[in-house]
């Protein structure tokens, strides 16, 4: 069995268009400002944390394939390019065979709503330019065209815990030598319908958009100083195991003796209770990106993993644990460690900012 290194990370979030912006927001520890989304038929708008318009138009948008794409593809492209930046400057890795796993829960909701709205009004005039962008596989397809050296690409759909299944799939491709590196991306866009669904399911949640990416490699020379140590089983919710029990099982299997905890707790009393209880005995430092950034669904899971890897890569921690207690599928946990240290002699560095001891 090979070691799996993190060769790069990328993030687009309501904090901005790179990992540095995510790190700064998490360190500041203050929930980001909330914007309003007009909801047709309602006087009161719905709250959301949107990705800010970039100060400079990203160069990748000039690529012919990305001209008519929706925001989710823009976020996906930005995190992909940020996460493979190290590979692209490394002469050994420039022509590596790349795999892509894009994980989604809501997917391409903006164009789906727009196209269905046009269909309901008059299908004869519904735009054929929009329809292809409604499919879950659209972002992965565009990124493959943008990066060019992609040999295999899957789009996975699930609740936010599926992001770690995406990483496990990337590992499988690496182990089978199908790819030399694998980008695993979690991405979401938001609009009024997503915020409306959240309002129905989890009223205190604030919809958010963005993406996060990890680039995996077996080559230690490509390592950004972070290594994947463990992903638990998928503790699936079923008639015999409820969400709280699955979260407890994940917590027990992850063990998490030390380091940082990147959890998925937001500001929701009901939705958070299973995860909160599972980690009630945790006394170490923790960060909760959703408290700052909002409910970004699959993107939020990716932010948790990016924050964990970033905390190690920047030398703040030697180990970081990720807890993903999904909304309706499963609970999965993961641990990342400093690439040059053995897991048995890890120690947590001093916490700071929003990292709460």
């Amino acid at each position, binding site marked *: 069995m090979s070691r799996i290194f993190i060769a790069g990370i990328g993030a687009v979030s309501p904090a901005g268009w790179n990992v540095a912006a995510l790190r700064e927001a998490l360190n500041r520890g203050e929930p980001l400002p909330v914007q309003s989304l007009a909801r047709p038929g309602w006087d009161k708008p719905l709250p959301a944390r949107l990705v800010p318009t970039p100060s400079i138009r990203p160069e990748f948008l000039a690529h012919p394939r990305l001209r008519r794409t929706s925001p989710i593809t823009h976020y996906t492209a930005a995190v992909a390019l940020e996460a493979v930046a190290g590979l692209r400057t490394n002469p050994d890795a420039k022509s590596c065979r790349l795999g892509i796993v894009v994980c989604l829960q809501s997917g391409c909701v903006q164009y789906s709503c727009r196209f269905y709205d046009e269909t309901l009004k008059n299908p004869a005039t519904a735009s054929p330019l929009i*329809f292809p962008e409604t499919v879950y596989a659209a972002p992965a397809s*565009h990124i493959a065209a943008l990066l060019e050296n992609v040999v295999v*690409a*899957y789009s996975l759909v699930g*609740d936010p815990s599926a992001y*770690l*299944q995406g990483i496990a799939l990337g590992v499988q491709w690496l182990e089978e030598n199908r790819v030399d590196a694998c980008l695993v991306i979690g991405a979401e866009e938001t609009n009024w319908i997503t915020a409306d*669904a959240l309002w129905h*399911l989890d009223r205190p949640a604030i919809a958010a958009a963005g993406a996060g990416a990890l680039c995996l490699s077996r080559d230690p020379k490509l390592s950004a100083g972070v290594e994947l140590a463990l992903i638990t089983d998928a503790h699936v919710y079923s008639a015999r195991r409820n969400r709280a029990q699955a979260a407890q099982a994940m917590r027990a299997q992850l063990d998490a003796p030390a380091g940082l905890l990147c959890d998925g707790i937001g500001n929701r009393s009901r939705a958070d209770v299973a995860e909160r209880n599972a980690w009630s005995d945790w006394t170490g430092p923790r960060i909760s990106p959703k408290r700052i950034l909002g409910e970004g669904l699959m993107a939020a899971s990716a932010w948790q993993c990016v924050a964990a890897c970033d905390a190690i890569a920047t030398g703040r921690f030697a180990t970081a644990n990720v807890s993903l207690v999904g909304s309706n599928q499963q609970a999965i946990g993961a641990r990342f460690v400093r690439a040059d240290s053995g897991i048995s002699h890890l120690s947590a560095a001093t916490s700071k900012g929003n990292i709460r001891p």
Partner: protein
Amino acid sequence: MLFPPTPLPAAPSRVVITGAGIVTALGIGWKPNAEGFRAGKVAFRPVSQFDVSRQRVKVAAEVDLPKTLPATQLSRRQVERLDRAGMMLILAAHEAWRQAGWQAAENLPLVLGTTAGGMLLGEAYYRQAVQQPRRHRQQATRAVHYQPQVQARTVFDALGFSGPVTIISNACASGSNAIGHAWDLIRSGQAERVVAGGYDALGELVFSGFDSLQALSPTICRPFDARRDGLALGEGAAVVTMETLEGARRRGAVILGELIGYGTSIDQHHLTQPQPQGNTTLMVMKQACAVAGITPEEIDYVNAHGTGTVLNDSSEAFAISEWAGRRAATLPVSSTKASIGHLLGGAGAVEAVVCLMALGEQWLPPEIEFEIPDPACKFPVVSRPQAACVNVALSNSFGFGGVNATLILRRWA
């Protein structure tokens, strides 16, 4: 643990299929479908599920769902919450499960391909949200149950097993990718058994989408025919139970066929159009053959992706002709989309089951409406019902976004 993974075995396990369930417009279950595909029956009719009066095309291959589902462990309330896609998925899974004779189990992976999951519930959610914005009834339920992982959990509850769920949404290659991924899980030693399949229901958004692209045939769906003018949509599901050969033999299971090859890659040419010479198709067919350790000379039948669109079929015809070489002149090829339409996320899984039927019952599924071959076809297109010696069958699936997948199945005799 998902990581570190189980060490790769010294030699990959052989993977066999011991149960298959199928739902298409030809019927519910193996028997009516086998009879229909063998005869080349065509199942298109005017769309009844939604208003198509303002659409350019007005037909599709709709499934006649039974009034009641077979007895499962689902509660009445769970059954009432199923949409068409969920019902077709349960019907197919139930048939496969019973045929395999599997018992309730934990940690049994389920891998499904779909493009839309419970999109019909999503459409209902949207309509109510905009047309009756202050009415909230059923919206929370729709918001949960349109998600494919929730539909997958319903399969668990119906059949009494549970395990990791993987939902692959690689557009119209999803069903093949799901079966291929299940094959990978077993060969790599991560699982001894997997339930896999694909499903999609006909929905207004998707129908309108293909109509807006003018990809739907206003006449007849005729894959590989020089006069072809588009695809026809259908709906359906197929589920297979896959296990190691050793496991199947140990329990004395009836083996329907062996999955011996899988290839997948991505065509970066265009979001909706294949590379004209079918480069990626050629690559995945070669990949699958290399893994299977066979040559085109050993393939007895190709179930093509064959949508009936001008671009897809010419690209695929180039690829098959190039890949098959001299074998092309005598290699039977057909697309069963001529009978049941394009099932999108369900297509690859349904077509894999059609291959199992052809392997098990020794016939070739014809395209009854096929008359004039496209000049790119260097192979014979099966156009009349015929018995045949079929030992190895290859199935192609391609999706919007460019994912291509090939499965190769072998007769078990």
